[in-house]
């Protein structure tokens, strides 16, 4: 109690908390989101309608949510972790039965005003829950096998549910986010080696299952993997995405074709130009200068998040901050690697830039938690 009381005394109160926010991250988020507005304006052929305007409204709403969350003490959010996790898990189950089917996957619950993706909520809830668990767990016990069962179950339950939607990309990112928290909590590296070996075995199994009665992935997912390995086999079908995406990136050159001059996006050669493939438009119109700048901004967010985590002596806050940062890192790096043709097309948006409702709100909420942990860190 003394620890808490002391820290409480040292904490800023009211408006003073605003000054203690991690402004570097906030400014970077604003810059990244603005880049997104610019690109959405461009891919709509110089129009705020239909994407840029709505995205701006969502970002503004997300910013308000972020600030509100940031102002509330981290202890509250720590207490909320089981509720957030449990609620998200229930929603993931519900989506199995009531979800809206779109693009071959069952992902959304239509709440009328918003199409909620429970898997988005789970991204942050899982990190919260694991941070809570390892905050609670005696550090000596972290690497003991019996104490691995609970976190593994916490991770596998939502991953399994998301896989059945099916949404391979989100499932991988959930597992990766959880893995990062476990890694930072000090779980022995041997386990990670074993997990990677198990994962590799699982991938082999999944690939072997094609065409059998116990087939684990949808046919289109197999095709995506095949196409990724050799896009030329299907230049007009699945390989079209990655081919056109690389053309857009490459043709941007060093300095780009200029704002709204990207022919690949403007002439609709780019698929999903306003969502998952939005980075290619930026790369085409602003070239290497533009894409490197965006990459640097993303990197700085990760760096500031990690430094904030490393300075935070509150174990829950530190793990949560690192978890949010890592999730953010995974999102943009998987998206970029995907559009550059380094990994298969898995349907992961570029955080803050891609057009999307719940992803934006959840991400801003996550950064709200990060800010709360930052503001309310022990001093």
């Amino acid at each position: 109690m003394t620890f808490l009381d002391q820290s409480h005394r040292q904490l800023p109160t009211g408006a003073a908390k605003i000054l203690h926010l991690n402004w570097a991250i906030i400014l970077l988020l604003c810059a990244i989101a603005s880049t997104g507005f610019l690109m959405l304006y461009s891919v709509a052929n110089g129009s705020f309608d239909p994407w840029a305007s709505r995205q701006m409204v969502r970002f503004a709403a997300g910013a308000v949510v972020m600030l509100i969350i940031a102002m509330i003490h981290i202890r509250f959010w720590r207490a909320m972790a089981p509720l957030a996790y449990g609620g998200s898990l229930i929603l993931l189950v519900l989506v199995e039965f009531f979800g809206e089917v779109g693009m071959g996957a069952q992902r959304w619950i239509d709440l009328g005003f918003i199409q909620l993706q429970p898997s988005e909520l789970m991204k942050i809830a899982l990190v919260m829950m694991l941070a809570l668990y390892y905050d609670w767990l005696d550090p000596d016990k972290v690497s003991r096998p019996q104490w691995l069962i609970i976190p593994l179950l916490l991770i596998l339950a939502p991953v399994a549910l998301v896989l059945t939607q099916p949404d391979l990309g989100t499932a991988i990112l959930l597992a990766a986010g959880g893995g990062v928290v476990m890694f930072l909590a000090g779980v022995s590296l041997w386990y990670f080696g074993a997990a990677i070996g198990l994962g590799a075995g699982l991938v082999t199994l999944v690939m072997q299952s094609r065409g059998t009665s116990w087939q684990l992935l949808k046919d289109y997912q197999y095709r995506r993997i095949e196409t990724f390995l050799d896009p030329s086999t299907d230049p007009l079908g699945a390989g079209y995405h990655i081919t056109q995406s690389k053309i857009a990136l490459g043709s941007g050159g060093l300095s780009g074709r200029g704002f709204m001059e990207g022919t690949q996006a403007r002439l609709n050669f780019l698929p999903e130009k306003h969502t998952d493939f939005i980075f290619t438009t930026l790369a085409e119109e602003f070239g290497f200068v533009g894409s490197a700048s965006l990459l640097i901004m993303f990197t700085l967010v990760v760096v500031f998040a990690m430094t904030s985590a490393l300075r935070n002596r509150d174990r829950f806050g530190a793990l949560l901050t690192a978890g949010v940062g890592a999730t953010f890192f995974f999102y943009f790096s998987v998206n970029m690697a995907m559009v550059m043709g380094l990994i298969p097309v898995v349907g992961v948006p570029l955080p803050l830039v891609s057009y999307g409702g719940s992803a934006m709100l959840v991400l801003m909420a996550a950064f709200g938690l990060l800010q709360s942990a930052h503001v309310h860190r022990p001093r």
Partner: protein
Amino acid sequence: MTRRGLLLLGAQLSLIAGLGYRVRQLQVEEADRYRMLAEENRMNIRLLAPGRGLIFDRNGVPLAENRQNYRVVMIREQAGDVEAVLDRLARLIPLPEDRRERVLREIRQRSAFVPVTVTEHLSWEEISRVASNAPALPGVLPEVGLTRHYPKGTASAHLVGYVGPVSERDLAAQESPDPLLQIPDFQIGKTGIEVRLEGELRGSAGASQIEVNALGRVMRELDRREGVPGQDLHLTIDGGIQEYALRRMDGQSAASVVMDVNSGEILASASAPSFDPNAFVFGISFDNWNTLLNDPYRPLSNKAVSGAYPPGSTFKMVVALAAIEAGLVTPDETVYCPGHYQLGDRRFHCWRSGGHGHMNLRDSLKQSCDVYYYDVARRVGVDAITQMANRLGVGVRHDLPLPAISEGLTPTREWKQRRYNEAWLVGDTINVGIGQGFMLASPLQLAVMTARLATGRAVEPRLIRARNGVPEPIPGAPDLGIPRAALEQVRVGMHAVVNDRRGTAYRSRIADPEVEMAGKTGTSQVRIITPEERARGVFRNEDLPWNRRDHALFVCYAPFDNPRYAVATVVEHGGGGSAVAAPIARDILMRTLYGPVPPLAAYPPDERQEIERRRAEEPAPEAPAAPTQTGRA
């Protein structure tokens, strides 16, 4: 936690570095390659068809022109309710049910933004109706294209030919096909000058560089380079003479060639019957095609240059010249004609069974005595005769830009050996002496022969007068090297044929003493009347079915003193040259010399009444279509 945190950050940063490296690779190192691919993506080249070269006659009267083809196209995405719009359109222009079905089918298959042709060849009134009702017809666009039209129709059909859609065979025939041929609706020459001078008439493609989106929709035109239109051609043909010649041969299967003896220019090359080339431009119906194909008068064949007929007696000048040049015949030397010529046990008949008596060169031509030429040909031999024939342009391929030009045939000993594996017989030479046997010549060759007889020079026929308005040079015709005296003797004979009261073509003479005509009749047997037929009483041509009757031929030139024009006429299975071919050739020659209305005084007195009567029936003998006349030029 700190150690692992730094480790994690390090791992993240190195992965980001990997991404950065990849971006650099794509955007800096491979940028050129991808930029090219992006351009390939968005750019399309659309070919622009050049205007096809026009074809005129020698006076600038169009023989082949490009007419505006008004058509209506429809774009589905702008039309909305396609059926309703078609209904409204059908109230303005004729739109048959089957056509409507086809449009509906096509418009559903194509992308929404691709224009589909609804109907074409509309009149100006029809297209105006469509244009003025535009607000009620969304997605309907009046358009104008170019299609070939032949104003002179039948008169120019065999010469100018016609164009048609590109066929698979046309494509296969070319080594590296012109990309233009891939343009839908593009038309190329199918016959006549249109096909032989295709390269000059077609021109070269223009290109429009357009930006397309991923669906192929045209976004905008980036660049446009107009094509080079094809060359305009002025033919040596006089449209008026050409039309007249065709009309004069109406009802016959015949051909006439009119040639300027000095320049070699072909003023008319008519083949009857003819056909309407305009019917071919948009695809002729199967029935019409079959009718043309099965017509025994062969309207599709250009008999003037492709036909090959035994020249008959019109060949006698060749034999005479060969003999005079060989020194075997003098003008005064006579041959006795008893009505037949005996060679061993074979008897060769003269057309006049009673015989001509003693014949000299002039009389032998004038009365076309066969026995004279049997005798002379035998003395000269086939070699000298064929050599002379070739010098005069018979049995030689004349290079005109027309398809299927006949080479005719001047038989030689080697030819017979090769063709029939038989030795040449004296009887063969005797047959050649009267232009029969194996001899074959086209009307064009006969015209060339006549022109060379009239001038003594190796005149070559020409059909192109100017390209793109630049006159073609007329090469001087070299002298044939035939002694003037020899030519003079033959010409005197040809003069007598027409102007001597006992000449075979006396009834077809030109009475105008200023413009005397010289000529030679010919009647060539298609087959020999067999002794059995003789026994059955078949003597006269008229008793035979049409396709076995004799060909009627006449060659002539005028004026006699200062030759300008030569005419050769062949009437297939027409009967006698003097009765059938000579009047036609004479009339065409008069039309050439005098223009549309030759003076009555130029006709022989016994024909004048008939001519007057005909002119009274047709008050305007020829519409003043041709702006200038060349007859007196």
